[in-house]
């Protein structure tokens, strides 16, 4: 019985915890706002976060020192006006002889901070974000991810909600079940007591009434042993089959690359078009890992990086000087028997890179986002509408499709599941 109570108590704690957690996540900030104070409005924080990631993150982090100083509690070190002035034009502040600014400048090897033409509100929103990060970096993290992309935010939030409800319902059901069991047990013990007190039972009945549940015998019974073996075999088989299905699947594979190239910096913050480096993506079957000469287009001028300084970029120079190509580790390994063409998907199909490669612009180290199994390919071919807009190739096909169907033409409708589309 004690055990049951413990369980219930545990469940209650969990439930309460979950409730508090979800409340802390979803409760809107409704505290009164001071005009000069740092905002805690999530919308402002969100705006600040976006700005921070797009502009500041190359050189700054909140809680650690990167190229520039850690920004934690910067709002306590200096007033807002100073911050705004420094962000708009740090050199001006330094040249004005501000002792803090000069000290900072010297401390960071006289690296100039780029001037940003932000409005006051924008800078304030960034500070709001910094403040939130300073005070509560852990709680803020999931929010940050969730708000990062437009559609996934909704999706992951609602998915979180439903699974939470699911667990709550489960716990409630379990509690009800336990209560029923307790009640039934009580009834049985009351009835037994009552029958024993009656004393007019014959031996056979007494035996039944007083019979103890023999757990040992039950465990040894054929039915139980058989059932247990069945469960065991099924579990082993399932594990084996699952294991086999995962053979060769490298989802999440994020090997260390010879150069610590950051997509987060290049694609995320600097917003360099994927096509700029991956030149084949619209014309060829392979998107192509950029050759060193493409790196050199920018890095002949940009010689220092925000994270590793000159170390990683120097590797490009070394490769060029010694005439040795850079040996990247291949992440997406389709088997040779499958033919995939980037141009077909990106140029013709207008599929976003992120659809298959994930939020590449947030990846510091690139990892394999998708399963890259045939089932994964086919699933997309079943669900995806063909990009037929302004493409004469599809005109007649769309016409024919619309004659027989009301739903838009999917890839599957034009033979997207046929073997020879990918295997030859």
């Amino acid at each position: 019985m004690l055990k049951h109570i413990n369980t219930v108590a545990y469940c209650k704690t969990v439930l309460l915890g979950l409730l508090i957690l979800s409340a802390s996540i979803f409760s809107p900030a409704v505290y009164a706002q001071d005009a000069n104070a740092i905002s805690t409005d999530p919308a402002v924080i969100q705006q600040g976060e976006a700005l921070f990631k797009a502009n500041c993150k190359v050189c700054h982090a909140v809680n650690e020192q990167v190229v520039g100083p850690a920004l934690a509690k910067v709002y306590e070190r200096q007033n807002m006006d100073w911050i705004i002035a420094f962000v708009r034009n740090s050199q001006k502040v330094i040249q004005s002889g501000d002792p803090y600014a000069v000290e900072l400048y010297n401390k960071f090897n006289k690296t100039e901070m780029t001037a940003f033409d932000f409005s006051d509100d924008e800078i304030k929103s960034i500070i709001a974000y910094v403040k939130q990060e300073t005070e509560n970096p852990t709680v803020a993290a999931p929010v940050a991810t969730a708000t990062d992309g437009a559609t996934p935010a909704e999706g992951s939030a609602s998915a979180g909600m439903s699974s939470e409800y699911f667990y709550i319902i489960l716990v409630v059901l379990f509690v009800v079940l336990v209560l029923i069991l307790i009640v039934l047990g009580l009834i049985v013990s009351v009835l037994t007591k009552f029958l024993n007190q009656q004393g007019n039972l014959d031996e056979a009945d007494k035996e039944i009434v007083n019979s103890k549940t023999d757990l040992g015998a039950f465990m040894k019974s054929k039915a139980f042993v058989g059932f247990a073996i069945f469960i065991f075999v099924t579990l082993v088989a399932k594990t084996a089959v699952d294991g086999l299905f995962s053979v060769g699947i490298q989802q999440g594979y994020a090997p260390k690359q010879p150069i610590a190239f950051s997509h987060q910096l290049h694609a995320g913050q600097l917003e360099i078009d994927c096509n700029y480096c991956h030149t084949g993506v619209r014309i060829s079957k392979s998107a192509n890992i950029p050759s060193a000469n493409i790196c050199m287009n920018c890095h002949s001028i940009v010689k220092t990086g925000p994270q590793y300084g000159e170390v990683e970029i120097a590797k490009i120079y070394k490769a060029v000087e010694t005439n040795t190509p850079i040996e990247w580790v291949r992440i997406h390994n389709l088997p040779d028997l499958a033919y995939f063409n980037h141009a077909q998907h990106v140029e013709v199909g207008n599929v976003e890179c992120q659809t298959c490669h994930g939020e590449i612009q947030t990846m510091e180290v690139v990892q394999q986002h998708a399963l890259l199994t045939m089932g994964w390919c086919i699933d997309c071919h079943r669900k995806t509408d063909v990009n037929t807009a302004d493409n004469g190739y599809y005109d007649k096909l769309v016409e024919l499709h619309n004659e027989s169907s009301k739903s838009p033409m999917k890839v599957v409708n034009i033979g997207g599941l046929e073997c020879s589309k990918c295997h030859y």
Partner: protein
Amino acid sequence: MKQSNKQYWKGIEQLTNSHEVVKNAEREFPEFLPINENGESGGSSRRDFLKLMGFGIAAVSLAACEAPVRKAIPYLNKPVDVDPGVANYYASTYSLGGNYCSIVVKTREGRPIKIEGNKLSNITKGGTNAQVEASVLSLYDKERLTGPKAKGADIDWVALDKEVISKLEAIAAKGGQIRIVSNSILSPTTKKVIADFKAKYPTTEHVTYDADSVSAMVEANSQSFGQAVIPSYNFDKAQTIVSFAADFLGTWISPIEFTKQYAVNKKLGKDKKTMSRHYQFESNLSLSGSNADYRTPVKASELGLAVAHLYNALAAKAGLATVSVKAGSFKNLDKAANDLWNNKGKSLVVAGTNDVSVQVLVNAINSLLDNYSSTINLAQAVNYRQGNDKQMAQLVADAKAGKVDGVIFYNCNPVYDHASGTELAAALAKVGFKLSTSDRMDETASLADFVAPDHHFLESWNDAEPKVGSYSLGQPTISPIFKTRQAQASFLVWAGGSDDYYNYLRNNWKSTVFSKQTSLMDFNTFWDKTLYDGVIELGAPSAASVAFAGDVAAAAASLSAKTDNGPELVIYQKVGIGTGNQANNPWLQEMPDPISKATWDNYLTISQAMATEMGITFVESNTSLVNLKVGGKSVTLPVLVQPGQANGTVGLAMGYGREKAGRVANGVGVNAYPFLTSANGFVSFEITSGVSIEATGEKYQVPQTQTHQTYMKRQNIVQESVLSEYVKDASAGRFHPHVMGYDGEKKPSEISLWSGHTYSNHHWGLVVDLNSCTGCSACTIACQAENNVPVVGRQEVLNRREMHWIRIDRYYSSDADANDVKGLEIAAENPEVVFQPMMCQHCNNAPCETVCPVAATTHSSEGLNQMTYNRCIGTRYCANNCPYKVRRFNWFKYHDNEKFAAVNVAMNDDLGKMVLNPDVTVRSRGVMEKCSLCVQRIQAGKLTAKKEGRRTNDDDVTTACASACPADALIFGDMNDANSKISKFLRLEEKEDKKVVKEERAFHMLEEINVNPNVFYLTKIRNKDLQENNV
């Protein structure tokens, strides 16, 4: 319509319908399954099972571990024009041993992987042949020299140049004789380089010879017209073609060009109901002979006589004096004379004999027929064969006499491929300085002191002037793989110049070709455009009649001197191997000879009558060895009973029996060159006396292909008729099967279990014109290159496991009863031949699809029968159920397998693998494969169209076979596209959602079983008289 009672047969064994053949014909695979590599007897044991299981478990657990790290290495400096994954095409020129073809080279990531014909060329017009298609593999030959050699040891170029120049200067200083020996050089700039060399070393003489010499033709033209040239021929303008042993469709002078021209008059359609008529008189059954409307087997010694008789017949018609010749009667000769006379000025007579007298007579005939103003253009001389037999004989004599001090063999191998090769080899000991530019240590190079290996033609800059007024540029499509150097650059260095041949070439073009043209004013623009096009035509004088000044009577008199002296040996070229300069190319070695269907061997072709006489039987590749003796030389070789072989003659192919070509070719077949004789100073390929053949009684197997692929019933596979019938009824010769149903007779297509497919997007189809197909097999090699088809080697061909996706079935037909030996001889004496390219028919009701237990072969929504290798488990049910026998099973892992390393070079060494098409999977052991209609090209073509936002057209997609075909016998296209060539050709019409083929000649193979293929065949129409066809 009257059905033909012709009997079709694949070979002698089938004609006799022997027990063995019937038994084998019913089987898809031979009963024995010799795949036990351990050589253990018996099947698998329990131990094997445990071993396999243990290995399997280990493999699975290993596979479950972390996948191996794979590197992706981008360019350091990406060339602007190269995008990984995108093919680049460069126009270039193939010229090898005087054979010419304007080509477009497909490269991927900077390596050539496929050769296509260049449609901009007026000469080859986009056609290729097997040798041209295969030459890309020769580039990646491991046997090529990796750098220069001196006395067999490695040396660097600087040291070599120093030594060579000092030797040459020493010879020049003492006034010694230097010779440059080469095959025909088509390149005018190379000739200029040699002239520069001569200027530096004035005692140099350039000796040109050709392994397949036509030197006598040049001499004859000199005697007849005072012009020592070979003229241009226009087979397309000829309504009557008479060939005396000239295999102009296979190997003679410029076969691609001639096939293109020949095919023009073989096309029939709604608006064209005329055809040329082709007579062939020859000893061996050649490719041209097998395409002739009338073919007469003639003994080699009587061939000249036949020409003389033709001259007399025509001279009589023209009212000219006849010449006195020995009496003789040749079937069809009078008929040919009549046709020629009726088509005066629209006819053409050619002879392949290297005999001045015969050639003079042929010139006389053509002159008499006024052909020099139309079908023969003496003013537009061709440069394909410039060999001079007399010069070469003189060189051998001089070398023997010790008069030659230095000799440079420029990309030629006379020790192997010249009649006096052995004498030359001995005489070379007396030559102080010997250098070869050969790409390998071949028979000649291994006797040289220095070897300065030349680039492969795909690594070189070059030009060519195939005929007067036609120029062609060759450009490198890959950086040199080895430390070789372009031979022209070597000559320039030795002549004291710089090794910059590219600029030398440019400058030469600036002063020659550029100055002759007027359309472009800027040289750079001109150069870029010509390089892009590959060819430039400056025009040549048109054909004009010339006065014949030859001595016909003398020529005829010298012919009459020939007498009958026992068996006669005729040395010929096979379409694949040719003269043997690409013998180390396994694609060519495994290409079935179009006529004999033999691979990996040469053999003595003999007539059935001779075989019977010698007591030799030839059943399903099983034959005997014989001793062939000519003069003092003898060799043991197998015989092959060849229907159509002139009785009393035997044939032997040159190009085999290489000793130092490399591990593919060495020891394959016997060398025929030592048997060549010299007659009146010209190399003679017909040895008419002193030949003896003795049976040894030893058994031997010649690996042949076709004897083991068979159909359910053969009677209606080939559907043919004659022109007169076709004119009356365009569906003449068609077989219309009917099936008896409960409600009477029906067309097979009206009864079907299947509801059929609807093709809303594309509907790919292929048309095979049996009338145009010459059987040249360019398609087979093109397909092999495009689709990574493995080479399996001699033993596996014998085991009936060749892998070609497209094969050319060759059927003989005759109407003689073959039930007795005499009848067999008659039937085999001179059968008609028909070639039928056979690839997956892409059936709409495919029998293979329904029997596959794992759905590895399925139908696509575009009409393709798809084969999915990774799904196939190798039950081979599909192959068993295929009525066309076009499915190929991977009995072995042909790639990375030591057992096949010597033959399947394209999949076994790092160099060879560079030729593989990266868009096509290399199949592994245990899976079925077959023609995919080049689905990778279809997908690529569709993508091009999609990117441009339009539908596909004929220019976007074509299959490798159709693109290679020099006769345009294969038409591929989208049958849903009303504007496609195939739709127009078949005159497709939509009726009740079904496509109706209006073209009367089109038929489906095995229509009676209603598998409803997407491949159509067009009936073969022979331009014969009705009674002679015995219909």
